């Protein structure tokens, strides 16, 4: 079995192991889950080492016929776009059970779902067959629904079903798009779901397999444009992009810390990954028509998210909205079709994965101790929890894109790449940087600085477990800020190839 499949399915093996452990032995369950998530992390690290950054081709490819009747393949492989996300996924999923150590309710179910979730996410990033892609995409939803719905906060039911409905509404449209594409090439090629093949055929305008293409004008739009839009909506909901974003604050706020971390750290990236891989990689010609719209939406998301975040009084909600703002950069960069823009977008996906995960963990620390998240309710924690404060400061500065930290590199690249194309929009987006800094530092001040709030004069300092979850992320933020080439070097070729699609 090749390494990629090992990475994808090893969590399932761990699931089997967890199933065998009686529900009563909670620590055993937690440990098993941690072990089960550690394996993929190690494998993915090896993958990172073995990855050949000098080519834009898919690597570690496994392509075997899976379902003959529809000529569906088990077709996995990674390129520069997906490998950072794969690694990030394994890392965060490894941290998740550790972060969720304190959960006492239904531990077994929790761990099982986490493992299932990991398989789903990894599958999406690795699969090169649309059917496979969709299967993993949906497999992800179910565990997420229960993880939010069972272990979440007070309004968890609402948040969970909202998340589920939203994403499903998007993905059924995507399904229609996939089916339509399949019908176009069903008769002409023997691997009608293969993403590389489809992209190549669409770019070469060889989709003549069905009358859909020939006379497929629906409501005044060429058929492929609809397919593009269907895909885009599905991904936009996942990202999420204004105005599809309102599931996000609820989901993030209600979800348990570990899950919020995964949500913000990885799930949002699925959307942007899809946009880069499918909307740009498959339909460049159509993507160009929508570029400006995309950039506008991106900037709107940046500003809108930032302003909303500023208006929040709930610590976690604030962080959630900051995610909306940060993901806007990805869209802006992607819509520019410039080398810098794409690199920035791809890197922003990774950096936001680390920084936002860090923020949610930090919020979780405060919530575990104070059992509320009202920003105004805290104050002067720095006096009682200096290390916690220190880590928070690192996290916040990483999130506000301080130079020397990864956030700056990606945002700078995005702005640099976008400015050539959308000077006005970019100049507006810059406001987002200021506002982001404003609400983050303002929060820092209200929560940690100033006179100590007497209620918390014996506020426990952050413990080893929490520190263990936070330090790697903080380290990544700084490392990639100092040496972004570590990441960009792996992604460069692929992104350059994508950019070349736009002349």
């Amino acid at each position, binding site marked *: 079995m090749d390494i990629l499949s090992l990475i994808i399915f090893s969590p399932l093996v761990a699931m089997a192991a967890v199933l065998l452990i009686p529900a009563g032995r909670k620590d055993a369950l937690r440990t098993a889950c941690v072990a089960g998530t550690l394996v993929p992390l190690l494998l993915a690290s090896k993958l990172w080492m073995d990855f050949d950054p000098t080519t834009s081709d898919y690597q570690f490819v496994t392509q075997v016929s*899976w*379902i*003959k*009747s*529809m000529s569906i393949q088990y077709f996995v492989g990674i390129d520069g776009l997906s490998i950072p996300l794969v690694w990030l996924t394994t890392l965060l999923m490894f941290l998740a059970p550790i972060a969720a150590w304190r959960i006492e*309710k*239904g531990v077994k*179910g929790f761990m099982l779902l986490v493992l299932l979730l990991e398989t789903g996410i990894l599958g999406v990033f690795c699969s090169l067959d649309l059917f496979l892609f*969709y*299967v993993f995409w*949906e*497999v992800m*939803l*179910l565990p997420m*629904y*229960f993880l939010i*719905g*069972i272990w979440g906060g007070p309004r*968890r*039911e609402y948040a*969970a*079903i909202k998340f*589920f*409905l939203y994403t*499903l*509404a998007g993905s*059924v*449209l995507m*399904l*229609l798009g996939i*089916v*339509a594409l*399949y*019908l176009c090439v069903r008769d002409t090629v023997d691997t009608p779901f293969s993403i590389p093949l489809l992209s190549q055929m669409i770019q070469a305008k060889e989709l003549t397999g*069905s009358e*859909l293409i020939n006379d497929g004008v*629906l409501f005044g739009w060429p058929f492929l444009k609809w397919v593009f839009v269907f895909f885009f909506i599905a991904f936009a909901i996942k990202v999420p992009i204004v105005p599809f974003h309102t599931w996000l604050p609820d989901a993030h706020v209600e979800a348990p810390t570990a899950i919020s971390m995964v949500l913000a750290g990885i799930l949002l990236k699925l959307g942007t990954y899809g946009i880069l891989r499918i909307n740009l990689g498959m339909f460049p010609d159509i993507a160009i028509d929508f570029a400006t719209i995309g950039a506008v939406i991106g900037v709107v998301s940046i500003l809108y998210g930032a302003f909303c975040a500023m208006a929040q009084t709930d610590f976690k909600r604030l962080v959630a909205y900051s995610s909306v703002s940060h993901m806007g950069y990805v869209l802006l960069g992607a819509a520019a079709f410039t080398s810098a823009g794409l690199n920035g977008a791809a890197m922003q996906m990774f950096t936001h994965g680390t920084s936002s995960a860090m923020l949610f963990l930090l919020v979780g620390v405060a919530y575990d101790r104070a059992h509320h998240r009202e920003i105004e309710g805290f104050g002067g924690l720095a006096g009682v929890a200096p290390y916690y404060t220190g880590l928070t400061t690192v996290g916040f500065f990483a999130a506000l894109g301080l130079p020397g930290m990864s956030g700056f590199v990606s945002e700078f690249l995005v702005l640099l790449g976008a400015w050539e194309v959308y000077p006005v929009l970019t100049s507006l987006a810059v406001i987002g940087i200021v506002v982001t800094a404003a609400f983050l530092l303002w929060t820092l001040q209200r929560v940690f600085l100033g006179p100590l709030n007497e209620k918390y004069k014996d506020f426990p300092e952050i413990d080893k477990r929490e520190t263990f979850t936070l330090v790697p992320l903080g380290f990544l933020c700084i490392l990639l800020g100092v040496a972004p080439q570590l990441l960009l070097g792996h992604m460069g070729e692929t992104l350059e190839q994508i950019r070349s699609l736009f002349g």
Partner: protein
Amino acid sequence: MTPELMAQIGALAPEISLTVAIVLTVIADLVFGARGRNLVGALGVAGVAVALWHLADPAGTHPERVFGLLQFDGFARFFRALIISGTGVVILHAVVFRGMENVSRNEFVPMLLGTALGGSLLVSTDHLLMLLLSLELLSLNSYLLAGWQRKERRSSEAALKYLVYGALASAIMVFGFSLFFGLAGDLHLSVIGAGVAEAWAGGDGSRFVVIMATALVLVGFGFKIAAFPFHFWAPDVYEGSPTPVTTFLAVSSKAAGFGMLVRFVDGVFLGDAFVGEWMKGLGHVIAVLSAVTMTYGNVTAVLQRNVKRLLAYSSIAHAGYLLMGVAVMTSSVGVDSGLDALMFYLATYYLATLGAFGCVMAIANRFGAEDLDDYQGLGWSTPFIGAMLVLFLVSLTGLPPTAGFVGKLMLFQATIDAGLYWLAVVGALNAVVSLFYYFKIARALYLRGDTEFVAGLSSRGIFPFLAHASVLALGLATVWYGLGFDGLAEWVRSSLL
């Protein structure tokens, strides 16, 4: 007895074994009375097993055409397999079903077998007379089964509603038959098809006859498959009848109805003398019917509190989905793709619904819960059943990695291929709506209530075990056909008309 007569009888082996099982169960009941409950159950299951074994046709040398009335082709085999095996599972559950403890189950089993017999004949015949006979055999048994719980007022009400409705529907259908007979002068579907074509060519008046006949017959079919607006009996009957019967109605009876419908449509309207414009009209009507049905079913299900009733509406919705297949069949292109999708979807629906009702019955046995409010938090007490129920619900919603997803995929594919884009979109959006109420069950099971363990009644013995085993098997099948559905697809493809 000429050898080829013997051969023809041999082709009837599954039905014969069912009949034998009926007789044996009745005798066993007479001999042992109430004590013979498990024996009767065992005999019933055994009969089903034998029937299925025959159906698998080890010899494989049976003639397709029997007595000029029955057409034992792959299509028939497919549907017979579904109906008979479904009945078997229902018997398993019925034997352990606590809701029927105060009533005799010993007649129940032969009655069920009788309905199965009717169903399997119904899907095999292409002759109106045989069709009528087997249909009534199915229906009349069902009426009685619906009212099986003597002490239950609701049960008898269900029976009455079913009866009245069914009587009217079948009567109307028979009248339609008579018109068709008049048009063609024969009772064989193929001949009728020719007659219809001729009549359609014959001018306005005779077209009017064709239309009237079609409408009348569609009422009958609409009743059997519970399609809007002929579905009204379904929710009440599903809720009122004992759960095993509900299961049977939702699975076998519906399968039989669709088998009959497809065979009729195929024989009469899609025959050699194919009338384009007429089919176009019919196709559109059926498409609209399907859209309305699925939307109505899903939307109305949203506010239901009773799980059985909820599943009843869901089954209406799924009837709508299945009608998508018929719509594709009758649309200008893709008779085969439509039928293919329909049969595949039916199989997946069969797995999921059977499993879901199995879980519902298990929960009812254990906690006596049938309403969502009583379900709260039960998932933590029966992790296995709870998880399985969720799995089946996922399949019914149509999410990967379950068979239900593939079924929907097939349907959408066929629909888009046939150019019915709007229908595909309606179907997709309906999937979202359906998620909303299916997951009310999941929510009640896991998200609501407290996680502590509720003991409930435990049930020992071979039959409970078998019942659970069947649920597990169905669950595995659901996942298996969700991930590797080649086998099923092959079977379906080889079973097309």
